[in-house]
């Protein structure tokens, strides 16, 4: 029998605010333990939380990007439980009136493009971090109170690949909105996934398992791949799936039961009396809406239509908001769009992935990039030299023409100047000359290479090839 999986995700997103959700403590990562704390995030009696407006705005913006309906009336609730990561013994969250309801995210996987339905997006506070030692545990409250946006999907995905595609698409949206750094190493995105299987042809969803606290996309993918097989095998062996909460063990490559449904929590939600409701007037929502960036998918299509870029280029460029902005700004100075795209996709993206830097952190300006591409296009500089100039622009900024002059990288187009190198190359490499004469056309490339080397990359390769051919044919 064939089985169909149903996968739902709860993605916890740390928002990119300077201060915490309900107090003014810093949200910075990597500080000494218990350094960014005040009586509010420690849950001292008598303290009062106040809402961070930026966090509300980010959540609503994300909801607008996913086409969710934004609640005109929304409130916070207390979720009670006992755990050392929660100093108040309750977490301020949203229960029945979240900021955003419904919506969807467009995904693309090998199975094609489709849209994944969202259930809701709400806002809550992050909890403390526990560290475990041999005989005790330690608690660091720095993270406690960081604004945490929870994106909850319907059980709408059918494969680990789709779950992964959803996470990538969501990450793209979050980065477009600027709502989160989406730095997985720093725990900016953490997932709980639920998964069930049912025989093909049936409608009712099977009994689900929940896998908690996955903090890498690969972890989500691998845990789901394992879990689906586990559940299908159990059913095929005539076993019954028990609703439970599980954890993913990377080293074992397996999920393990943490607790069964019988021990389910009763969180006793009730409205947070210390916070007033959030009432969003259409006017406010419209103002935020106007500030919304274009969705990556829409931008990709526009790049193809407006700049005549191939689908592949458009996808790569639009995938990162900063990269896409750089392209568009450079394209406003240089209409050779495909060349601008090429330089970004090869040299620039390689530099970013090698150094781990972002476009925003580079001193390179869009104008400088456009000018450099123009210098190459106008035959002023060879692409080899242009790579060197781009390296300098990315490291220290500046003007490409100035760098070209200062480093003596101006392309040599002058035949007389090049003839000397050509003669030398032909004289020093009789074997290649012989090969070329015998009809091995590729041999000319070696000779051109020798000239390029002698000219330290400054020679115009087309002119050199022409000269080499002329020189050999003349003798």
């Amino acid at each position: 029998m064939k089985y169909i999986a149903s996968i739902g995700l709860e993605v916890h997103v740390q928002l990119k605010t300077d201060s915490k959700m309900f107090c003014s403590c810093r949200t910075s990562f990597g500080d000494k333990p218990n350094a960014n704390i005040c009586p509010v995030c420690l849950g001292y009696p008598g303290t009062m939380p106040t809402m961070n407006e930026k966090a509300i705005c980010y959540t609503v913006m994300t909801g607008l990007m996913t086409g969710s309906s934004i609640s005109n009336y929304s409130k916070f609730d207390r979720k009670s439980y006992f755990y050392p990561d929660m100093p108040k013994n309750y977490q301020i969250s949203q229960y029945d009136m979240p900021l955003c309801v419904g919506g969807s995210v467009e995904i693309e996987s090998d199975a094609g493009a489709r849209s994944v339905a969202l259930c809701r997006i709400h806002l809550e506070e992050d909890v403390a971090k526990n560290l475990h030692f041999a005989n005790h545990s330690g608690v660091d409250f720095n993270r406690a109170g960081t604004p945490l946006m929870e994106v909850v999907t319907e059980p709408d995905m059918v494969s680990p690949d789709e779950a992964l595609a959803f996470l990538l698409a969501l990450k793209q949206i979050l980065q477009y909105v600027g709502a989160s750094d989406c730095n997985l190493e720093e725990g900016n995105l953490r997932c709980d996934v639920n998964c069930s299987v049912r025989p093909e042809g049936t409608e009712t969803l099977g009994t689900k398992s929940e896998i908690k606290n996955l903090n890498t996309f690969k972890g989500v993918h691998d845990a789901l791949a394992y879990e689906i097989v586990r559940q299908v095998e159990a059913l095929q062996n005539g076993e019954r799936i028990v609703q439970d909460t599980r954890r993913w063990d990377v080293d074992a490559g397996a999920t393990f039961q943490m607790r069964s449904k019988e021990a389910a929590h009763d969180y006793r939600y009730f409205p947070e009396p210390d916070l007033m409701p959030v009432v969003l007037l259409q006017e406010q929502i419209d103002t935020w809406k106007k500030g919304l960036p274009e969705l990556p998918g829409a931008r990709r299509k526009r790049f193809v239509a407006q700049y005549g870029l191939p689908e592949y280029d458009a996808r790569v460029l639009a995938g990162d908001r900063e990269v896409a902005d750089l392209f568009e700004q450079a394209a406003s100075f240089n209409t050779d769009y495909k060349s601008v795209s090429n330089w970004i996709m090869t040299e620039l993206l390689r530099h970013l992935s090698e150094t781990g830097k972002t476009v925003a952190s580079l001193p390179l300006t869009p104008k400088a990039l456009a000018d450099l591409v123009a210098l190459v296009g106008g035959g002023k500089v060879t692409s080899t030299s242009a790579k060197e100039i781009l390296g300098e622009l990315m490291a220290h900024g500046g003007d490409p023409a100035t760098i070209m002059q200062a480093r003596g990288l101006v392309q040599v187009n002058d035949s007389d100047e090049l003839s000397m190198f050509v003669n030398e190359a032909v004289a020093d490499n009789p074997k290649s000359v012989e090969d070329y004469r015998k009809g091995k056309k590729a041999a000319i490339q070696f000779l051109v290479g020798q000239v390029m080397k002698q000219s330290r990359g400054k020679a115009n390769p087309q002119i050199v090839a022409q000269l080499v051919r002329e020189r050999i044919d003349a003798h």
Partner: protein
Amino acid sequence: MMDVAGEKNIDVAYVAHLARLRLSEEETAVFQKQLEGIVGYVNKVREIDTTGVEPTAHGRSVQNVFREDMAREGLTTEEVLRNAPAQRDGLFVVPKIVE
């Protein structure tokens, strides 16, 4: 909480468990009686006709009390840990957490 005739208004043993309170059988019985009385009294509110009245979480009609996103210094780590029963390397020490 239930208010169906013949059933308890409140299950004190369950609520005590949720609140991590250890009650003796005698205490449970005493509180059961007292809290039933209280919940029963509060249940009188349900007799009021609230047709057409919007539920509200607050008695005051104040809304959107926001704070600007500005970070400020909080307490020093020494102050934070002053009341900690046990601490080590800047961390609150708690019994080993087993998940």
